[in-house]
Protein backbone atom coordinates (compact mmCIF):
# COMPACT_ATOMS: atom_id res chain seq x y z
CA UNK A 1 0.00 0.00 0.00
CA UNK A 2 1.60 3.25 -1.01
CA UNK A 3 1.40 6.39 1.13
CA UNK A 4 -1.23 8.12 -0.99
CA UNK A 5 -3.55 5.15 -0.85
CA UNK A 6 -2.88 4.81 2.87
CA UNK A 7 -3.84 8.45 3.48
CA UNK A 8 -6.94 8.13 1.30
CA UNK A 9 -8.06 5.11 3.32
CA UNK A 10 -7.58 7.05 6.56
CA UNK A 11 -10.55 9.21 5.50
CA UNK A 12 -9.34 12.26 7.41
CA UNK A 13 -11.70 14.95 5.98
CA UNK A 14 -14.85 12.84 6.56
CA UNK A 15 -13.68 12.21 10.16
CA UNK A 16 -13.52 15.96 10.75
CA UNK A 17 -16.96 16.45 9.21
CA UNK A 18 -18.38 13.61 11.31
CA UNK A 19 -16.92 15.10 14.49
CA UNK A 20 -18.37 18.48 13.60
CA UNK A 21 -21.82 16.87 13.39
CA UNK A 22 -21.43 15.04 16.71
CA UNK A 23 -21.00 18.33 18.54
CA UNK A 24 -21.84 17.44 22.11
CA UNK A 25 -19.88 14.21 22.59
CA UNK A 26 -16.93 15.78 20.80
CA UNK A 27 -17.01 19.01 22.78
CA UNK A 28 -17.36 17.09 26.00
CA UNK A 29 -14.29 14.99 25.26
CA UNK A 30 -12.31 18.04 24.14
CA UNK A 31 -13.17 20.04 27.24
CA UNK A 32 -12.40 17.12 29.56
CA UNK A 33 -9.01 16.70 27.97
CA UNK A 34 -8.19 20.41 27.94
CA UNK A 35 -9.21 21.05 31.54
CA UNK A 36 -7.31 17.99 32.68
CA UNK A 37 -4.26 19.15 30.79
CA UNK A 38 -4.41 22.66 32.26
CA UNK A 39 -4.75 21.32 35.80
CA UNK A 40 -2.12 18.63 35.34
CA UNK A 41 0.46 20.99 33.80
CA UNK A 42 0.05 23.64 36.49
CA UNK A 43 -0.39 21.13 39.29
CA UNK A 44 2.71 19.26 38.27
CA UNK A 45 4.65 22.49 38.10
CA UNK A 46 3.56 23.53 41.58
CA UNK A 47 4.26 20.03 42.88
CA UNK A 48 7.76 19.90 41.42
CA UNK A 49 8.44 23.42 42.69
CA UNK A 50 7.32 22.42 46.20
CA UNK A 51 9.30 19.25 46.02
CA UNK A 52 12.42 21.14 45.01
CA UNK A 53 11.95 23.58 47.86
CA UNK A 54 11.52 20.78 50.35
CA UNK A 55 14.40 18.74 49.07
CA UNK A 56 17.01 21.48 48.63
CA UNK A 57 19.76 21.23 51.19
CA UNK A 58 20.73 24.15 53.37
CA UNK A 59 24.46 23.48 53.18
CA UNK A 60 24.76 22.23 56.76
CA UNK A 61 24.99 18.58 57.81
CA UNK A 62 21.22 18.28 58.29
CA UNK A 63 20.90 14.66 59.23
CA UNK A 64 23.61 14.60 61.89
CA UNK A 65 23.04 17.90 63.67
CA UNK A 66 20.87 19.21 66.45
CA UNK A 67 20.58 22.33 68.51
CA UNK A 68 19.65 23.30 72.03
CA UNK A 69 19.36 26.44 74.09
CA UNK A 70 21.13 27.04 77.37
CA UNK A 71 19.46 29.72 79.47
CA UNK A 72 21.00 31.01 82.66
CA UNK A 73 18.60 32.06 85.37
CA UNK A 74 20.67 33.08 88.38
CA UNK A 75 22.29 36.45 89.02
CA UNK A 76 25.83 35.19 89.29
CA UNK A 77 25.58 33.18 86.05
CA UNK A 78 28.66 33.82 83.95
CA UNK A 79 27.72 33.58 80.30
CA UNK A 80 31.16 33.61 78.71
CA UNK A 81 32.57 31.01 81.08
CA UNK A 82 29.56 28.80 80.63
CA UNK A 83 29.80 28.89 76.85
CA UNK A 84 33.52 28.15 77.03
CA UNK A 85 33.18 25.19 79.30
CA UNK A 86 30.02 23.84 77.65
CA UNK A 87 31.60 23.81 74.22
CA UNK A 88 34.84 22.35 75.54
CA UNK A 89 32.91 19.53 77.21
CA UNK A 90 30.78 18.82 74.16
CA UNK A 91 33.73 18.91 71.75
CA UNK A 92 35.60 16.47 73.95
CA UNK A 93 32.98 13.77 73.49
CA UNK A 94 34.22 11.08 71.11
CA UNK A 95 31.09 10.99 68.89
CA UNK A 96 30.89 14.75 68.46
CA UNK A 97 32.36 16.12 65.24
CA UNK A 98 32.23 19.70 66.44
CA UNK A 99 29.94 22.19 68.18
CA UNK A 100 29.46 25.92 68.04
CA UNK A 101 27.57 28.75 69.67
CA UNK A 102 25.41 30.36 67.03
CA UNK A 103 22.95 33.21 66.71
CA UNK A 104 20.89 31.34 64.15
CA UNK A 105 20.74 28.35 61.79
CA UNK A 106 18.84 27.29 58.66
CA UNK A 107 15.13 26.47 59.21
CA UNK A 108 15.14 28.33 62.56
CA UNK A 109 13.12 31.14 61.03
CA UNK A 110 14.88 33.69 63.19
CA UNK A 111 18.06 35.60 62.43
CA UNK A 112 19.47 38.93 61.38
CA UNK A 113 19.39 40.42 57.90
CA UNK A 114 21.97 42.92 56.68
CA UNK A 115 22.55 44.76 53.46
CA UNK A 116 25.89 44.16 51.72
CA UNK A 117 27.43 46.28 49.00
CA UNK A 118 30.73 46.85 47.26
CA UNK A 119 30.61 50.60 47.69
CA UNK A 120 29.43 52.74 50.51
CA UNK A 121 26.71 54.62 48.65
CA UNK A 122 25.15 51.65 46.90
CA UNK A 123 21.47 52.09 46.15
CA UNK A 124 20.88 48.40 45.57
CA UNK A 125 22.67 46.50 48.32
CA UNK A 126 22.48 42.71 48.53
CA UNK A 127 20.36 41.38 51.40
CA UNK A 128 22.03 38.56 53.33
CA UNK A 129 21.62 36.71 56.61
CA UNK A 130 24.39 36.92 59.19
CA UNK A 131 25.77 33.95 61.08
CA UNK A 132 27.88 34.71 64.14
CA UNK A 133 30.18 31.77 64.73
CA UNK A 134 33.66 31.11 66.06
CA UNK A 135 36.41 29.31 64.13
CA UNK A 136 34.70 25.95 64.76
CA UNK A 137 31.66 27.07 62.77
CA UNK A 138 32.69 25.62 59.42
CA UNK A 139 33.25 22.16 60.81
CA UNK A 140 30.31 22.25 63.21
CA UNK A 141 27.89 23.17 60.44
CA UNK A 142 29.59 20.91 57.92
CA UNK A 143 30.23 23.71 55.42
CA UNK A 144 32.46 23.53 52.40
CA UNK A 145 35.08 26.25 52.04
CA UNK A 146 35.68 26.73 48.30
CA UNK A 147 38.16 29.60 48.46
CA UNK A 148 40.18 31.50 51.05
CA UNK A 149 40.56 30.45 54.68
CA UNK A 150 38.69 29.95 57.89
CA UNK A 151 39.01 32.48 60.77
CA UNK A 152 41.77 31.99 63.31
CA UNK A 153 40.98 31.79 67.03
CA UNK A 154 42.19 35.28 67.80
CA UNK A 155 40.00 36.85 65.14
CA UNK A 156 36.88 35.81 67.07
CA UNK A 157 35.41 38.65 69.08
CA UNK A 158 33.15 38.21 72.06
CA UNK A 159 30.51 40.86 72.17
CA UNK A 160 27.41 41.84 74.06
CA UNK A 161 24.08 41.71 72.23
CA UNK A 162 23.93 45.52 72.32
CA UNK A 163 26.88 46.25 70.07
CA UNK A 164 26.63 46.11 66.31
CA UNK A 165 30.28 46.19 65.47
CA UNK A 166 31.63 43.63 63.04
CA UNK A 167 35.01 41.87 63.11
CA UNK A 168 37.25 42.89 60.20
CA UNK A 169 36.78 39.69 58.15
CA UNK A 170 33.80 37.81 56.72
CA UNK A 171 33.10 34.60 54.86
CA UNK A 172 30.51 34.83 52.06
CA UNK A 173 28.46 32.13 50.39
CA UNK A 174 29.13 31.66 46.68
CA UNK A 175 25.74 33.16 45.79
CA UNK A 176 26.39 36.18 47.94
CA UNK A 177 29.80 36.71 46.34
CA UNK A 178 28.27 36.26 42.93
CA UNK A 179 25.59 38.86 43.63
CA UNK A 180 28.15 41.30 45.01
CA UNK A 181 31.00 40.92 42.57
CA UNK A 182 29.22 39.46 39.58
CA UNK A 183 31.85 36.75 39.11
CA UNK A 184 32.34 33.00 39.51
CA UNK A 185 36.03 33.41 40.17
CA UNK A 186 35.95 33.14 43.95
CA UNK A 187 39.71 33.68 44.31
CA UNK A 188 39.36 37.13 42.82
CA UNK A 189 36.91 38.13 45.53
CA UNK A 190 39.30 37.34 48.38
CA UNK A 191 40.66 40.42 50.09
CA UNK A 192 37.97 42.60 48.54
CA UNK A 193 36.30 45.15 50.78
CA UNK A 194 32.55 45.19 51.24
CA UNK A 195 30.20 47.37 53.28
CA UNK A 196 27.68 46.11 55.78
CA UNK A 197 24.60 48.35 55.96
CA UNK A 198 26.55 50.98 54.00
CA UNK A 199 28.73 51.86 56.97
CA UNK A 200 31.02 49.10 58.18
CA UNK A 201 33.90 48.03 56.02
CA UNK A 202 34.91 44.36 56.17
CA UNK A 203 37.22 42.21 54.04
CA UNK A 204 36.27 38.95 52.32
CA UNK A 205 38.41 36.18 53.79
CA UNK A 206 36.80 33.09 52.32
CA UNK A 207 33.96 31.67 50.28
CA UNK A 208 31.53 29.02 51.53
CA UNK A 209 29.79 26.86 48.94
CA UNK A 210 26.28 26.88 50.44
CA UNK A 211 24.72 28.12 53.65
CA UNK A 212 21.05 29.01 53.55
CA UNK A 213 19.55 31.91 55.43
CA UNK A 214 17.37 30.93 58.41
CA UNK A 215 14.08 31.85 56.73
CA UNK A 216 12.73 29.08 54.45
CA UNK A 217 11.01 30.50 51.40
CA UNK A 218 12.96 33.76 51.61
CA UNK A 219 13.63 35.18 48.18
CA UNK A 220 17.37 35.40 48.86
CA UNK A 221 17.62 32.09 50.69
CA UNK A 222 21.13 31.45 49.44
CA UNK A 223 22.53 34.79 50.62
CA UNK A 224 24.37 34.64 53.91
CA UNK A 225 27.71 35.53 55.45
CA UNK A 226 29.66 34.46 58.51
CA UNK A 227 31.26 36.89 60.90
CA UNK A 228 33.65 35.62 63.61
CA UNK A 229 31.89 36.56 66.78
CA UNK A 230 30.23 35.07 69.83
CA UNK A 231 27.37 37.06 71.30
CA UNK A 232 27.09 36.74 75.04
CA UNK A 233 23.36 36.58 75.46
CA UNK A 234 21.73 35.08 78.53
CA UNK A 235 20.28 32.40 76.29
CA UNK A 236 22.85 30.64 74.12
CA UNK A 237 22.07 28.39 71.21
CA UNK A 238 24.51 25.58 70.50
CA UNK A 239 24.56 23.75 67.24
CA UNK A 240 26.14 20.31 67.56
CA UNK A 241 27.22 17.99 64.79
CA UNK A 242 27.78 14.33 65.63
CA UNK A 243 29.08 11.27 63.83
CA UNK A 244 26.53 9.59 61.53
CA UNK A 245 24.19 7.20 63.36
CA UNK A 246 24.79 8.64 66.84
CA UNK A 247 22.33 11.52 66.79
CA UNK A 248 19.65 10.15 69.15
CA UNK A 249 22.15 8.86 71.70
CA UNK A 250 24.19 12.04 71.66
CA UNK A 251 21.15 14.28 72.05
CA UNK A 252 20.20 12.72 75.34
CA UNK A 253 23.79 12.32 76.51
CA UNK A 254 24.66 15.96 75.86
CA UNK A 255 21.43 17.20 77.36
CA UNK A 256 22.08 15.46 80.66
CA UNK A 257 25.80 16.29 80.69
CA UNK A 258 25.03 20.02 80.32
CA UNK A 259 22.17 19.96 82.80
CA UNK A 260 24.20 18.20 85.46
CA UNK A 261 27.37 20.20 84.86
CA UNK A 262 25.83 23.59 85.56
CA UNK A 263 22.78 23.98 87.79
CA UNK A 264 22.44 27.69 87.15
CA UNK A 265 20.76 27.31 83.79
CA UNK A 266 18.16 25.35 81.90
CA UNK A 267 18.62 23.28 78.76
CA UNK A 268 15.66 23.92 76.49
CA UNK A 269 14.35 23.56 72.98
CA UNK A 270 16.51 20.66 71.99
CA UNK A 271 15.69 19.47 68.50
CA UNK A 272 17.36 17.83 65.52
CA UNK A 273 17.73 19.90 62.36
CA UNK A 274 15.74 17.28 60.45
CA UNK A 275 12.79 17.76 62.81
CA UNK A 276 13.07 21.54 62.56
CA UNK A 277 12.98 21.19 58.78
CA UNK A 278 9.93 18.93 58.91
CA UNK A 279 8.08 21.45 61.05
CA UNK A 280 8.89 24.27 58.68
CA UNK A 281 7.89 22.33 55.58
CA UNK A 282 4.97 20.38 57.04
CA UNK A 283 2.38 22.49 55.25
CA UNK A 284 4.28 22.29 51.97
CA UNK A 285 4.52 18.53 52.28
CA UNK A 286 0.78 18.28 52.89
CA UNK A 287 0.09 20.56 49.92
CA UNK A 288 2.38 18.46 47.76
CA UNK A 289 0.62 15.25 48.78
CA UNK A 290 -2.83 16.71 48.12
CA UNK A 291 -1.69 18.03 44.77
CA UNK A 292 -0.34 14.65 43.70
CA UNK A 293 -3.54 12.94 44.83
CA UNK A 294 -5.57 15.46 42.85
CA UNK A 295 -3.45 15.00 39.73
CA UNK A 296 -3.59 11.22 39.87
CA UNK A 297 -7.31 11.02 40.62
CA UNK A 298 -8.16 13.63 38.01
CA UNK A 299 -6.22 11.65 35.40
CA UNK A 300 -8.03 8.53 36.49
CA UNK A 301 -11.48 10.14 36.36
CA UNK A 302 -10.81 11.77 33.00
CA UNK A 303 -9.49 8.45 31.71
CA UNK A 304 -12.66 6.70 32.87
CA UNK A 305 -14.77 9.43 31.28
CA UNK A 306 -12.98 9.01 27.99
CA UNK A 307 -13.37 5.23 28.13
CA UNK A 308 -17.07 5.61 28.82
CA UNK A 309 -17.68 8.18 26.12
CA UNK A 310 -15.70 6.19 23.55
CA UNK A 311 -17.45 2.93 24.44
CA UNK A 312 -20.84 4.57 24.12
CA UNK A 313 -19.93 6.16 20.84
CA UNK A 314 -18.64 2.89 19.38
CA UNK A 315 -21.70 1.04 20.65
CA UNK A 316 -23.92 3.57 18.88
CA UNK A 317 -21.89 3.20 15.71
CA UNK A 318 -21.92 -0.61 15.63
CA UNK A 319 -24.16 -0.64 12.58
CA UNK A 320 -22.00 1.95 10.85
CA UNK A 321 -18.89 -0.12 11.51
CA UNK A 322 -20.63 -3.14 9.98
CA UNK A 323 -21.53 -1.04 6.92
CA UNK A 324 -17.95 0.14 6.52
CA UNK A 325 -16.76 -3.44 6.80
CA UNK A 326 -19.31 -4.58 4.19
CA UNK A 327 -18.17 -1.80 1.88
CA UNK A 328 -14.56 -2.94 2.04
CA UNK A 329 -12.94 -1.73 5.25
CA UNK A 330 -10.69 -4.35 6.82
CA UNK A 331 -9.98 -4.62 10.54
CA UNK A 332 -6.96 -2.33 10.30
CA UNK A 333 -9.07 0.34 8.60
CA UNK A 334 -11.55 0.24 11.49
CA UNK A 335 -8.73 0.34 14.05
CA UNK A 336 -7.07 3.28 12.32
CA UNK A 337 -10.37 5.08 11.89
CA UNK A 338 -11.16 5.22 15.58
CA UNK A 339 -7.55 5.71 16.62
CA UNK A 340 -7.31 8.68 14.29
CA UNK A 341 -10.66 10.08 15.36
CA UNK A 342 -9.50 9.88 18.94
CA UNK A 343 -6.12 11.39 18.08
CA UNK A 344 -7.86 14.34 16.42
CA UNK A 345 -10.08 14.91 19.46
CA UNK A 346 -7.12 14.55 21.81
CA UNK A 347 -5.00 16.93 19.79
CA UNK A 348 -7.70 19.60 19.75
CA UNK A 349 -8.19 19.03 23.49
CA UNK A 350 -4.47 19.33 24.07
CA UNK A 351 -4.22 22.48 22.00
CA UNK A 352 -7.05 24.21 23.84
CA UNK A 353 -5.70 22.76 27.09
CA UNK A 354 -2.35 24.41 26.47
CA UNK A 355 -4.07 27.75 25.91
CA UNK A 356 -6.03 27.12 29.11
CA UNK A 357 -2.94 26.12 31.07
CA UNK A 358 -1.10 29.25 30.02
CA UNK A 359 -4.10 31.40 30.93
CA UNK A 360 -4.33 29.71 34.32
CA UNK A 361 -0.63 30.23 34.86
CA UNK A 362 -0.79 33.88 33.85
CA UNK A 363 -3.58 34.30 36.42
CA UNK A 364 -1.46 32.57 39.08
CA UNK A 365 1.56 34.67 38.17
CA UNK A 366 -0.41 37.90 38.48
CA UNK A 367 -2.50 37.06 41.52
CA UNK A 368 -0.11 34.96 43.56
CA UNK A 369 3.38 35.98 42.45
CA UNK A 370 3.73 32.57 40.88
CA UNK A 371 6.46 31.53 38.45
CA UNK A 372 6.01 31.28 34.71
CA UNK A 373 5.06 27.81 33.53
CA UNK A 374 7.97 26.32 31.56
CA UNK A 375 7.23 24.79 28.16
CA UNK A 376 8.48 21.41 29.33
CA UNK A 377 5.50 21.01 31.67
CA UNK A 378 3.09 21.61 28.81
CA UNK A 379 4.91 19.02 26.74
CA UNK A 380 4.88 16.51 29.59
CA UNK A 381 1.18 17.13 30.27
CA UNK A 382 0.42 16.76 26.55
CA UNK A 383 2.28 13.44 26.43
CA UNK A 384 0.45 12.30 29.56
CA UNK A 385 -2.88 13.13 27.90
CA UNK A 386 -1.97 11.25 24.72
CA UNK A 387 -0.91 8.24 26.73
CA UNK A 388 -3.98 8.43 28.95
CA UNK A 389 -6.16 8.59 25.85
CA UNK A 390 -4.60 5.58 24.25
CA UNK A 391 -4.97 3.59 27.46
CA UNK A 392 -8.55 4.77 27.89
CA UNK A 393 -9.69 4.04 24.34
CA UNK A 394 -7.79 0.94 23.35
CA UNK A 395 -10.41 -1.46 24.72
CA UNK A 396 -13.44 0.14 23.05
CA UNK A 397 -11.49 0.49 19.81
CA UNK A 398 -10.55 -3.19 19.83
CA UNK A 399 -14.23 -3.92 20.38
CA UNK A 400 -15.02 -1.87 17.28
CA UNK A 401 -12.47 -3.90 15.33
CA UNK A 402 -14.33 -7.10 16.26
CA UNK A 403 -17.68 -5.89 14.87
CA UNK A 404 -18.66 -8.36 12.16
CA UNK A 405 -19.48 -7.17 8.64
CA UNK A 406 -22.79 -9.09 8.79
CA UNK A 407 -23.97 -6.44 11.27
CA UNK A 408 -24.77 -4.47 8.13
CA UNK A 409 -27.42 -6.93 7.02
CA UNK A 410 -28.84 -7.71 10.45
CA UNK A 411 -31.87 -6.26 12.18
CA UNK A 412 -33.26 -4.06 9.45
Amino acid at each position, binding site marked *: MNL*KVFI*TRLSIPPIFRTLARQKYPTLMLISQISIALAVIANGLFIAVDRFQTISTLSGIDESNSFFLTSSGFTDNFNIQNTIHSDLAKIRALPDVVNAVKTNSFPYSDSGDEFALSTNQDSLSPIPAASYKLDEHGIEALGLELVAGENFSTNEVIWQSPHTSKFAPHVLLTTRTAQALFNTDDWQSTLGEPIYIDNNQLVIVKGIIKTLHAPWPGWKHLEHSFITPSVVTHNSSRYLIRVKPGTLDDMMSEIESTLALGNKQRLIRKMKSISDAKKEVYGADLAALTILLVVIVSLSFIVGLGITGATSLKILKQTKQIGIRRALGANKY*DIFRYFLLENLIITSIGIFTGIVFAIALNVFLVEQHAFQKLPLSYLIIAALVMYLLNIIATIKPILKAVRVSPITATQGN
Partner: protein
Amino acid sequence: MLKMTDVKKVFRTDLVETHALKDFNLQVGEGDFVAVTGPSGSGKTTFLNIAGLLETFDGGTYELDGQDVSNLNDKHRSQLRNEKIGFIFQGFNLIPDLNLFDNVDVPLRYRGFNSAERKKRIENSLEMVGLAQRMKHLPSQLSGGQQQRVAIARALAGEPRFLLADEPTGNLDTKMANSVMELLKTINDAGTTIIMVTHDADLAKQARRNIYVRDGQVSEL
Protein backbone atom coordinates in the same frame (compact mmCIF):
# COMPACT_ATOMS: atom_id res chain seq x y z
CA MET B 1 -19.22 -16.05 -12.14
CA LEU B 2 -20.55 -17.36 -8.85
CA LYS B 3 -20.52 -21.04 -8.05
CA MET B 4 -21.55 -22.57 -4.74
CA THR B 5 -21.24 -26.29 -4.27
CA ASP B 6 -22.65 -28.02 -1.18
CA VAL B 7 -22.15 -24.92 0.93
CA LYS B 8 -23.09 -25.46 4.58
CA LYS B 9 -23.61 -22.94 7.34
CA VAL B 10 -24.34 -23.88 10.93
CA PHE B 11 -25.12 -21.35 13.67
CA ARG B 12 -24.36 -22.70 17.10
CA THR B 13 -25.64 -21.20 20.29
CA ASP B 14 -25.48 -22.77 23.74
CA LEU B 15 -28.91 -24.31 23.27
CA VAL B 16 -29.44 -24.94 19.58
CA GLU B 17 -27.69 -25.67 16.32
CA THR B 18 -29.31 -24.03 13.31
CA HIS B 19 -28.44 -25.45 9.93
CA ALA B 20 -29.07 -22.25 8.00
CA LEU B 21 -27.67 -23.63 4.74
CA LYS B 22 -27.56 -27.35 3.93
CA ASP B 23 -25.77 -28.40 0.76
CA PHE B 24 -26.56 -25.13 -0.92
CA ASN B 25 -25.86 -25.37 -4.65
CA LEU B 26 -26.08 -22.45 -7.01
CA GLN B 27 -24.43 -21.19 -10.16
CA VAL B 28 -24.97 -17.66 -11.39
CA GLY B 29 -23.69 -16.55 -14.77
CA GLU B 30 -22.28 -13.22 -15.86
CA GLY B 31 -24.94 -10.58 -16.44
CA ASP B 32 -27.72 -12.55 -14.77
CA PHE B 33 -30.42 -11.05 -12.56
CA VAL B 34 -31.47 -13.57 -9.94
CA ALA B 35 -34.40 -13.01 -7.63
CA VAL B 36 -34.31 -15.09 -4.45
CA THR B 37 -37.55 -15.78 -2.61
CA GLY B 38 -38.48 -18.11 0.19
CA PRO B 39 -40.09 -18.20 3.60
CA SER B 40 -38.75 -16.33 6.55
CA GLY B 41 -35.81 -18.08 8.19
CA SER B 42 -35.10 -20.21 5.14
CA GLY B 43 -31.55 -18.95 4.77
CA LYS B 44 -31.78 -16.19 2.14
CA THR B 45 -29.82 -13.61 4.09
CA THR B 46 -27.31 -16.22 5.17
CA PHE B 47 -26.74 -17.13 1.53
CA LEU B 48 -26.33 -13.49 0.56
CA ASN B 49 -23.89 -12.85 3.42
CA ILE B 50 -21.75 -15.76 2.32
CA ALA B 51 -22.00 -14.79 -1.33
CA GLY B 52 -20.92 -11.26 -0.39
CA LEU B 53 -17.98 -12.52 1.71
CA LEU B 54 -19.48 -10.97 4.82
CA GLU B 55 -19.59 -14.35 6.47
CA THR B 56 -17.58 -17.57 6.42
CA PHE B 57 -19.13 -20.99 5.89
CA ASP B 58 -18.65 -24.46 7.33
CA GLY B 59 -18.50 -26.78 4.33
CA GLY B 60 -18.56 -26.99 0.57
CA THR B 61 -16.84 -24.69 -1.90
CA TYR B 62 -17.50 -21.22 -3.20
CA GLU B 63 -15.88 -19.83 -6.32
CA LEU B 64 -16.23 -16.17 -7.11
CA ASP B 65 -15.06 -15.06 -10.53
CA GLY B 66 -13.19 -18.32 -10.88
CA GLN B 67 -11.37 -17.87 -7.59
CA ASP B 68 -11.86 -20.21 -4.63
CA VAL B 69 -12.71 -17.87 -1.76
CA SER B 70 -13.20 -20.47 0.99
CA ASN B 71 -10.06 -19.77 2.97
CA LEU B 72 -9.19 -16.13 2.55
CA ASN B 73 -8.11 -13.91 5.43
CA ASP B 74 -10.02 -10.82 6.55
CA LYS B 75 -7.85 -8.41 4.62
CA HIS B 76 -8.22 -10.29 1.39
CA ARG B 77 -11.97 -10.81 1.81
CA SER B 78 -12.41 -7.11 2.56
CA GLN B 79 -10.53 -6.24 -0.58
CA LEU B 80 -12.64 -8.57 -2.73
CA ARG B 81 -15.82 -7.15 -1.20
CA ASN B 82 -14.60 -3.69 -1.98
CA GLU B 83 -13.61 -4.40 -5.57
CA LYS B 84 -16.13 -6.93 -6.83
CA ILE B 85 -19.27 -6.59 -4.77
CA GLY B 86 -21.79 -3.84 -4.21
CA PHE B 87 -24.34 -4.14 -1.40
CA ILE B 88 -27.84 -2.77 -1.06
CA PHE B 89 -29.61 -3.33 2.23
CA GLN B 90 -33.23 -3.27 3.25
CA GLY B 91 -32.58 -0.47 5.77
CA PHE B 92 -30.57 1.59 3.24
CA ASN B 93 -27.73 1.72 5.77
CA LEU B 94 -26.40 5.10 4.89
CA ILE B 95 -24.05 6.63 7.46
CA PRO B 96 -26.19 9.29 9.17
CA ASP B 97 -23.39 11.75 9.96
CA LEU B 98 -22.05 11.83 6.40
CA ASN B 99 -23.65 13.74 3.54
CA LEU B 100 -24.50 11.94 0.29
CA PHE B 101 -21.14 12.75 -1.25
CA ASP B 102 -19.22 11.35 1.73
CA ASN B 103 -21.48 8.30 1.91
CA VAL B 104 -20.75 7.33 -1.67
CA ASP B 105 -17.09 8.14 -0.98
CA VAL B 106 -16.76 5.44 1.72
CA PRO B 107 -16.07 2.38 -0.49
CA LEU B 108 -14.06 4.49 -2.96
CA ARG B 109 -11.64 5.52 -0.23
CA TYR B 110 -11.09 1.90 0.77
CA ARG B 111 -10.40 1.28 -2.90
CA GLY B 112 -7.62 3.88 -2.74
CA PHE B 113 -8.78 5.97 -5.71
CA ASN B 114 -7.31 9.46 -5.90
CA SER B 115 -9.57 12.40 -5.13
CA ALA B 116 -10.26 13.42 -8.74
CA GLU B 117 -11.26 9.87 -9.62
CA ARG B 118 -13.48 9.61 -6.54
CA LYS B 119 -15.15 12.92 -7.26
CA LYS B 120 -15.90 11.86 -10.83
CA ARG B 121 -17.35 8.52 -9.75
CA ILE B 122 -19.41 10.03 -6.93
CA GLU B 123 -20.90 12.64 -9.23
CA ASN B 124 -21.60 10.15 -11.99
CA SER B 125 -23.27 7.62 -9.75
CA LEU B 126 -25.38 10.22 -7.94
CA GLU B 127 -26.30 11.59 -11.36
CA MET B 128 -27.39 8.15 -12.45
CA VAL B 129 -29.81 7.84 -9.52
CA GLY B 130 -31.01 11.40 -10.04
CA LEU B 131 -29.62 12.91 -6.84
CA ALA B 132 -26.59 14.85 -8.07
CA GLN B 133 -28.17 18.11 -6.92
CA ARG B 134 -28.37 16.95 -3.30
CA MET B 135 -24.79 15.87 -2.73
CA LYS B 136 -24.37 18.02 0.38
CA HIS B 137 -27.57 16.79 2.00
CA LEU B 138 -27.67 14.45 4.93
CA PRO B 139 -29.49 11.10 4.57
CA SER B 140 -32.09 12.25 7.11
CA GLN B 141 -33.12 15.00 4.70
CA LEU B 142 -34.17 12.46 2.05
CA SER B 143 -37.18 10.17 1.59
CA GLY B 144 -36.76 6.40 1.90
CA GLY B 145 -36.78 5.91 -1.85
CA GLN B 146 -34.15 8.60 -2.28
CA GLN B 147 -32.02 7.06 0.46
CA GLN B 148 -32.18 3.70 -1.27
CA ARG B 149 -31.10 5.39 -4.49
CA VAL B 150 -28.09 6.82 -2.70
CA ALA B 151 -27.31 3.35 -1.38
CA ILE B 152 -27.48 2.05 -4.94
CA ALA B 153 -25.19 4.87 -6.10
CA ARG B 154 -22.78 3.94 -3.30
CA ALA B 155 -22.92 0.26 -4.29
CA LEU B 156 -22.25 1.06 -7.94
CA ALA B 157 -19.67 3.83 -7.70
CA GLY B 158 -16.84 1.30 -7.56
CA GLU B 159 -18.23 -0.48 -10.66
CA PRO B 160 -18.53 -3.91 -9.04
CA ARG B 161 -19.21 -7.03 -11.09
CA PHE B 162 -21.85 -8.09 -8.52
CA LEU B 163 -24.68 -6.33 -6.89
CA LEU B 164 -26.17 -8.08 -3.86
CA ALA B 165 -29.43 -6.76 -2.52
CA ASP B 166 -31.28 -7.98 0.57
CA GLU B 167 -34.90 -6.88 0.25
CA PRO B 168 -33.94 -3.54 -1.29
CA THR B 169 -37.59 -2.51 -1.58
CA GLY B 170 -38.73 -3.92 1.75
CA ASN B 171 -39.01 -0.51 3.40
CA LEU B 172 -40.51 1.30 0.40
CA ASP B 173 -44.04 1.82 -0.88
CA THR B 174 -45.05 0.24 -4.19
CA LYS B 175 -44.33 3.27 -6.28
CA MET B 176 -40.87 3.76 -4.91
CA ALA B 177 -40.23 0.01 -4.98
CA ASN B 178 -41.03 -0.04 -8.68
CA SER B 179 -38.74 2.86 -9.46
CA VAL B 180 -35.88 1.17 -7.56
CA MET B 181 -36.64 -2.02 -9.49
CA GLU B 182 -36.48 -0.09 -12.77
CA LEU B 183 -33.11 1.28 -11.71
CA LEU B 184 -31.82 -2.23 -10.93
CA LYS B 185 -32.97 -3.48 -14.31
CA THR B 186 -31.14 -0.64 -16.05
CA ILE B 187 -28.00 -1.49 -14.11
CA ASN B 188 -28.37 -5.15 -15.02
CA ASP B 189 -28.85 -4.25 -18.67
CA ALA B 190 -25.55 -2.38 -18.47
CA GLY B 191 -23.85 -5.66 -17.49
CA THR B 192 -23.81 -5.91 -13.69
CA THR B 193 -24.79 -9.28 -12.27
CA ILE B 194 -27.51 -8.90 -9.63
CA ILE B 195 -28.73 -11.19 -6.89
CA MET B 196 -31.75 -9.82 -5.09
CA VAL B 197 -33.58 -11.29 -2.11
CA THR B 198 -37.22 -10.24 -2.03
CA HIS B 199 -40.56 -11.13 -0.50
CA ASP B 200 -42.42 -9.47 -3.34
CA ALA B 201 -43.49 -12.01 -5.99
CA ASP B 202 -44.37 -9.28 -8.51
CA LEU B 203 -40.89 -7.80 -8.31
CA ALA B 204 -39.29 -11.25 -8.44
CA LYS B 205 -41.10 -11.95 -11.70
CA GLN B 206 -39.36 -9.01 -13.31
CA ALA B 207 -35.93 -10.65 -12.78
CA ARG B 208 -34.36 -12.84 -15.46
CA ARG B 209 -34.24 -15.82 -13.16
CA ASN B 210 -36.01 -16.88 -9.97
CA ILE B 211 -34.79 -19.26 -7.31
CA TYR B 212 -36.66 -20.40 -4.24
CA VAL B 213 -34.89 -21.15 -0.99
CA ARG B 214 -36.50 -23.49 1.50
CA ASP B 215 -34.92 -24.95 4.57
CA GLY B 216 -31.45 -23.88 3.57
CA GLN B 217 -31.60 -25.38 0.10
CA VAL B 218 -32.25 -24.10 -3.41
CA SER B 219 -35.12 -25.14 -5.58
CA GLU B 220 -35.27 -23.51 -8.95
CA LEU B 221 -38.64 -22.24 -10.20
